[in-house]
């Protein structure tokens, strides 16, 4: 990872399991049922006697040192220098699934053609200055895509406007 590299940040506290990211991704990437570039995992917990569910949208992590890239015997997987997005060249892929064995997150997907495909961080949209389809769809704003600096700036803004004290202060600046 370096300062130019982009990543997909997930705020699991905010994700509400609405699944809009999943179908928005299907529309943007014109995907059939089969390959899932993003999916929300559900986990059930009981903490101090209180039952909870937690949710985590999972897609390709665009790792700093991608295990899939090393595992690919034909060099079909690459990491873009300018922003660290991990991409796969379907024309080179031989469908051996080595990348799937190597990936700790199960991100590589295989459709009817048995060629690896996965989240490409909507790089064509990022190149145009647009948010990824999943980020644009997320009404909880639980998904933030960008460099670590960009993400951290957004989170700091978010926390600076969310404080428990503010609740009981008189707001005089509002009509």
């Amino acid at each position, binding site marked *: 990872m370096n300062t130019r590299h982009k990543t997909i940040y997930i705020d699991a506290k905010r994700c509400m399991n*609405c699944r809009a990211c999943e179908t928005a991704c299907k529309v943007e*990437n014109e995907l059939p*049922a089969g390959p899932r570039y993003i999916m929300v995992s559900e986990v059930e917990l009981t903490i101090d006697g209180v039952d909870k569910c937690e949710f985590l949208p999972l897609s390709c992590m665009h790792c700093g040192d991608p295990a899939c890239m090393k595992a690919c015997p034909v060099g079909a997987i690459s990491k873009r220098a300018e922003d660290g997005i991990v991409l796969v060249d379907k024309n080179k892929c031989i469908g051996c699934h080595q990348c799937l064995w190597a990936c700790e997150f199960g991100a590589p997907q295989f459709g009817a053609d048995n060629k690896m495909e996965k989240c490409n961080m909507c790089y*064509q*949209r990022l190149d145009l200055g647009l948010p990824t389809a999943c980020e644009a769809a997320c009404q*909880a704003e639980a998904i933030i895509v960008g460099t670590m600096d960009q993400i951290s700036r957004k989170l700091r803004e978010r926390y600076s406007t969310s404080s428990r004290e503010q609740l*009981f202060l008189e707001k005089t600046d509002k009509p």
Partner: protein
Amino acid sequence: MSSFSRLHEDLDKFAMATDVPITLGGKIVIADRVVKTACPHNCYDTCGFLAYVKDEKVIKVEGDPDHPITRGHLCLKGYANVQKINSPDRVKYPMLRVGERGERKFKRISWDEAFDWMTEKLTMLRDTYGPESFCEYLYSGNREHMIKAASSRFHNLFGSSKLVGSFCLLSGAAGSYYSIGEQNVMSPEVWADKTECIFLIGRNPSFTNPHLYPFLYKATERGAKLIVVDPYLTPVGSKADIHLRPRPTTVLQMIMGMTNYIVANDLHDKDFIAEHGFGFDEFMEEVRKMPIERAAQICDMDVEQLKQAAVMYATHKTQTECGYGHQRYSNGHQTQRAVSCLAAVCGHIGKETGNLNYINHMGFPSIPGFMNAAKVAAPEGATIPKTRLINISTFAQAVLAAKDPPIKGCISYRGGLVSQQPYVSETIKAVKQLDMYVAIEQFMTDDTDYADLVLPGCHFLEQYGFHPSYWHSYFQVLVPVCQPYHEAVPDIEIWQELGRRMGFAEYFPKEDTGLDYIRWMLPDDVKLEECTSPNGPIRIPERWCPRVPYADYNFKTPSGKFEFYAQGMVERGKKFPGDWNPVPWNMDTDESPTATPELFAKYPFTLISQHPAFRTHSQGYNLPWIKEIEGPPKVFINHADANALGLKAGDKVRIANDRGELLNVLAAPTVRVRKGVAELSSGMWVKLGASVNVLTSQSVGGPRDVGVGIMDEYHPLLDGNTTAYFNTLVKIEKMQKGEKR
């Protein structure tokens, strides 16, 4: 016979832009036009919607970023409309049944032949039994209201039996109405910045109202408390400060216990009660019978948690945000009465920090207001006979019971009659006795299996519509973004042509479009152009959607006050049977562990069904994108129950009661429901999945008892009626290896 051709309008007039570059499948694609509309699937949000069209096909959809509430986001169903409208499985042309009902054998016919067939059948029904032997079945798949006005024009002229009511939320609406009068809600942008606590009851916003969620987290992240009431562990329940999980059927007792505790501890708003309340003493007589300890026992809850919630509710400035889950019981009207009274006891009404939100009056299209359907439904100069009414919450019972005349003809559209009405086998029995059953559908559903005639229906993106949200205050007219696919014809044009062929040509001139009907329905001071693509949405004028409802405390009730004692119920009770008890009381429900112990001994699980994120009622169940996420049908039961039954995750079970059985449902042991409760999500198709309605009871919420639902008079707010889906007891058994149907 004249030949039918559909109206072919130039749709570029609605384009916000033409030749628009968009990203799609990793490429830049030039869309012919982008059009703004709104989503009319029966949901609080009514999202602002942008559709990109190329060669008259929808290639992409997005949320409208200019919509103040939905702000550019759609839900998973919203995005999946791309797959739905383009599906190869759509009904493409009219088809006439050639086999037995249920055999799914049809032959292709032309629209002219279809209209000839319908005209002949309708004439035969009118001459043999009279026009009241015909009625429509219309619900909320596409919930826009213009079509109801247009079809009512036909029914009024023809003299059909009229379909009224709702099986969704009217028991609660009546409960709310008798308490507070006219129904209004405070839009979330008002309270999100100011409230100290949100009391969310019977609503799962992740799945059914996702645009509420940003306002919830905005409030909670700045420190507001969140109390969620739901027997099911919803995602938002997981994020709550307190998640109250009463045993299903007992929310009423829980609320009364909380009220008792609040008053006993002197936490009530005595000024509000004294100045703006009516009948508090009579109300308290019932409340005193329900100490919080007793309530906790009935509801099977931790009394300390309930006390904590009561104190939190009373001592914070609280927004009460009601869904409809808690009123889908036969005591649903009294449950919502109790919730309304709880808000009033604490004075949480008519303030920017909190209001009592149930539904705004956009929920009642038959009552004139912002919408005036009568201008379309009752054309000037026509003689309109008074006809009998059929209540949709008891539709199958009415069809089976109707004698004078019997119901012999039905056109069904925008609603899953077989899959969504309770007690599927009774519904099928009712449908089978019709001489004319027409289904206007986009797909071959459970309904089309039994239809004589299947007509290719339009997707909402292919037709006009009028659907103001029943939750927020913004309005966008629905316009066709593209020409209908295949041979589909917009519903309005079907009714117009049928009207012309049945002899009412002067009332259905060919040049009237849906847009004309919508113009007639709008108030005079609202300009159609301002809320129609490329413009919109508009803020609905203050007099229809006040920013802070009830702020003047001038309640539209008989006493002009908030009615703890509902005088309106006493009055209506003189006219019709039902439960008109003017104060909320400890009312048990029809089918429940306590009310029917002998049934409970056989069927020890209370079956509830949430509306999942994956579909609007039954819509979308057949879409590959959605099936992929949802997976095969599964039933959630508590780990303790699963252990007792020897069930592991993924084991196949049989779920059954006297009404029917479901096989091969996968067991999902969980913490999401408590012991004794099973959850099977609603809306699965009978033929494709595990339709919960195979098992659900025909029990109906009050206050009025409408019997089998054949009526002369009915008012949605005065009479209520909601199908009490959750008054359902079942047994669950592990299926043996190799056992199948």
